[in-house]
């Protein structure tokens, strides 16, 4: 860092200490929470200028959102501004991300309708890895399973027009209700159920390769996990933790009963083998299926919703911090402020994804009245003063109410759905949603009036830049 003395040596404002370098003041500011940084900005003109510097706010964004999001944002903005190497307005960007209140939906079109497209399905897996969307398996009409793997390029030349390519079939064996997460650049797939009703507990690792001449391919191989593995299951939840581990919870087991166990998979460096171990905690979230797990801030795993043992739809939120020496699921209690429409929050078969800013975006799913939803909610557990505090000592209603925020959705209006899948790209600003179960208005595909959807659409976080 260059040592430059501040230009206000002649200014009468401030103790001699404020003449120390800007770098050191920045170093102090970077240790502070946002409201303290902005209190600093309110002291005087000089400090307001300092605390408003875009260079500082880029560092703050990097600190709070992680380097990946920041680098991805810089990359995409370079394309936008092309010849002008414009600095992103980081302070304004940070503010808009924090205050996010709307999303814009875009229907994604296919250039050539003669090309094969993945058939409509639900309870499949959809992930973003190495600039590609990867889709595997799922269930479709007639309760049949699928075993095909499809990829679509979402790189820098992406213009909202997609090309799906089928790259594999047969391996892994067909299934739905499995989970697939991304660890480093590998896909890690676990469990699921096939159309014979057999539940699985095998673990697969998928790797995308781009050949100059042969094009894109994806290879799946069975992971050697030794003798210890979680009991077979489908409709469980999983998430990757900090690019090293995978956490799995609950789901429906071999005897058709919902489970509430927690397992962690640790992979060797070359991803050739892995080790499962169970995490026993008390208390722990009740048994459930169709719920979600997301990892925020690198170490905190957030669990939400699902369907419980009594077939009821749940709305509880739990957090597990993997960095603590004693692992514990802690329930986060909340109250919703009065909402005129009386929206309720129990959800099953929703999607939960971490978006830019480090919060969780919840979309769709089925509610307690068996209605499919199309609403977007942002779940922010940091609004809670301390998530390691026991629920009984939480007394701050205003903070609890800040946990859930409903977003406005503009643009394209897809059908309400459940058991769809969603994933973001590297920037965390764009969410891709595919498939799911939708209500069939024209002709019921099955006697229950259910249909499978094959639409892929894009959800963009609206940041006025």
């Amino acid at each position, binding site marked *: 860092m260059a040592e430059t003395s501040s230009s206000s040596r002649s200014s009468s404002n401030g103790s001699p200490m*404020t003449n120390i*370098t800007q770098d*050191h003041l920045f170093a102090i500011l970077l*240790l502070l*929470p946002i409201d303290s940084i*902005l209190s600093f900005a309110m002291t005087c003109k000089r400090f307001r200028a300092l605390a408003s510097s875009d260079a500082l706010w880029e560092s703050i964004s990097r600190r709070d959102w992680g380097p990946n999001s920041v680098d991805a944002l810089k990359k995409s903005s370079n394309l936008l501004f092309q010849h002008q190497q414009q600095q992103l307005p980081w302070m304004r960007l940070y503010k808009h991300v924090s205050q996010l209140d709307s999303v814009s939906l875009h229907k994604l079109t296919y250039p050539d309708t003669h090309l094969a497209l993945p058939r409509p399905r639900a309870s499949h897996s959809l992930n973003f890895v190495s600039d590609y969307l990867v889709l595997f398996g799922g269930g479709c009409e007639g309760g049949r399973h699928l075993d095909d793997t499809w990829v679509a390029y979402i790189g820098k030349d992406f213009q909202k027009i997609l090309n799906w390519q089928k790259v594999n079939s047969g391996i892994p064996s067909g299934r739905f209700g499995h989970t697939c997460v991304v660890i480093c650049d590998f896909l890690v797939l676990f469990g699921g159920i096939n159309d014979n009703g057999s539940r699985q507990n095998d673990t697969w690792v998928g790797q995308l390769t781009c050949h100059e001449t042969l094009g894109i391919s994806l290879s799946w191989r069975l992971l050697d996990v030794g003798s210890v593995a979680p009991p077979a299951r489908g409709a469980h939840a999983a998430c990757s933790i900090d690019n090293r581990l995978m956490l799995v919870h609950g789901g429906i087991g071999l005897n058709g009963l919902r489970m509430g166990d927690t397992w962690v998979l640790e992979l060797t460096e070359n991803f050739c083998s892995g080790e499962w171990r169970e995490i026993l905690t008390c208390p722990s979230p009740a048994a459930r299926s169709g719920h979600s797990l997301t990892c925020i801030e690198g170490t905190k795993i957030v669990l939400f919703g699902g369907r419980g043992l009594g077939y009821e739809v749940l709305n509880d939120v739990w957090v597990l911090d993997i960095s603590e020496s004693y692992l514990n699921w802690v329930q986060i209690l909340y109250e919703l402020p009065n909402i005129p429409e009386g929206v309720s929050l129990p959800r099953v078969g929703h999607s939960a994804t971490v978006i830019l800013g480090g919060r969780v975006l919840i979309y769709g799913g089925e509610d307690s009245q068996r209605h499919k939803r199309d609403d977007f909610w942002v779940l922010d557990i940091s609004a809670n003063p301390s998530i390691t505090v026991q629920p009984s000592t939480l007394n701050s209603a205003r903070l609890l109410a800040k946990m859930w925020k409903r977003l406005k959705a503009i643009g394209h209006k897809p059908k309400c759905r459940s058991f769809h899948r969603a994933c973001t790209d590297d920037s965390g600003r764009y969410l891709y949603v595919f498939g799911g179960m939708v209500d069939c208005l024209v002709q019921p595909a099955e006697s229950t009036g259910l249909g499978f959807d094959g639409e892929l659409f894009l959800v963009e976080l609206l940041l006025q830049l």
Partner: protein
Amino acid sequence: MANNGENPSPDVGGKTVKLKADDGEIFEVEEAVAMELQTVKSFFDDDGVSYDTVVPLLNVSSTALAKVIQYCRRAVELRAKSGDDEGANEKAREEREGLEAELVREESDEGIKELILAANYLNIKDMLSFLCRAVGDRIKNKSVEYVRRFFVLENDFSPEEEERTRNEVAWAFEGVDAD
């Protein structure tokens, strides 16, 4: 050479360096300790400067210099203790953190600021780092007025400007009670 008890005497037998504070007080320190102060190191890196030369530190008070020397002396000792042994490293790190906490705990706001100025002038990276952390801890979650008092700042906003600034930053305080 004045020795008022705050001036720790160096070990006999090692090479020493003389440092002069702003009030003329001279501190004799071991060479290894003196080289922790990058400004002093640069002073001697210049050609033709003999180690007998007294280094003039015009911007550092004798109180601050005494504390800086005390810290650097302990830091050099602790660094010598750590090596390849992870256990020893861990212990040394804990001891250093304890040393930093102790130094900071006893200091007033003015004292911390004086130390930052000294560490900044003398260019001691590690010391600056934990001093900045200490300042951060002291102003974290405090009111605007508290921060002004800490840095001795005059509010040079007009009432309209102040109101405008408050509105601009209000988004970060949503849902938080006024302190």
